[in-house]
């Protein structure tokens, strides 16, 4: 099962091995996806938060698929503006849509217009814990 992962979940998994983000990214039945734009911001954030860059590199190499998104960032932000409350978050929705996933996992639910994303793109936005709960019900 392919799921697109927002950067807050990736960073959370690097900060704690007892949090829901860490548990989620270690579930063998999911294939987590990020985009090159996500990877770029993750590199910036890990540096700012003094997280060892090797930890991120290893996690991405071992667990993630990096799915390319086409188009200029400025253009895709405009194109997907209806799905976010902060236009700077639009590349996350673009990544999920481009990768054709059914699930987008984020802690930052308030920055996404969940109804539009579900209704128009057929992508369900969930927190890590809620997605883990869903996996348990399968």
């Amino acid at each position, binding site marked *: 099962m392919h799921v697109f992962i927002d950067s807050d979940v990736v960073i*959370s998994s690097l900060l704690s091995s007892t949090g*829901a983000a860490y548990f989620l990214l270690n579930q063998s039945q999911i294939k987590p996806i990020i985009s090159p734009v996500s990877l770029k*911001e993750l590199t910036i*954030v890990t540096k700012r938060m003094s997280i060892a860059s090797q930890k991120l590199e290893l996690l991405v190499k071992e667990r993630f698929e990096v799915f390319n998104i086409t188009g200029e960032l400025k253009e895709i932000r405009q194109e997907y503006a209806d799905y976010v409350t902060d236009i*700077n978050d639009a590349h996350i929705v673009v990544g999920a849509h481009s990768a054709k996933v059914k699930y987008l996992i984020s802690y930052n*639910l308030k920055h996404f217009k*969940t109804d539009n994303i579900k209704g128009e793109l057929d992508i369900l936005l969930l*927190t890590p814990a809620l997605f883990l709960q869903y996996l*348990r019900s399968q």
Partner: protein
Amino acid sequence: MPPQKILYEEGVDTSFFLSFKDDIQIKEAHRLIRGNQYSIDIPDHVWYHVIMLRTIDTIKAYTPEQVAEMLQLSKNTVYDLINRGEIVAKKIGKLYRISAPSIFFFFTGLDYDLHQADQEDRKRLSSVEEEITKARAQL
């Protein structure tokens, strides 16, 4: 009935409310800044869960009758749920006792361990979100 109000000191973690499945209504809840305090209007159905969670003591065990009252179910339904394994209970002699984590899902939409794991991440979430916002602005 008007929504309940909870008054918080600024800086208190309110992410607790976001663990509810229907948090869309919480996101729409009115937030009013008053000096260093703010109040949040909590819809009735969420307020009910808040009260229930405050009531639950995680180291305590409950009788099926108490659980029936908390979940607004009949006593027989609770016994059926125990027999089907949907509520995990310990039989002591002829009596059942139910631990709080066994019924946690009914109030939060999450099993107890997942709720704990969720809260673990949320301890650092504000600083994580802050750094991500800064990084996205400079992309």
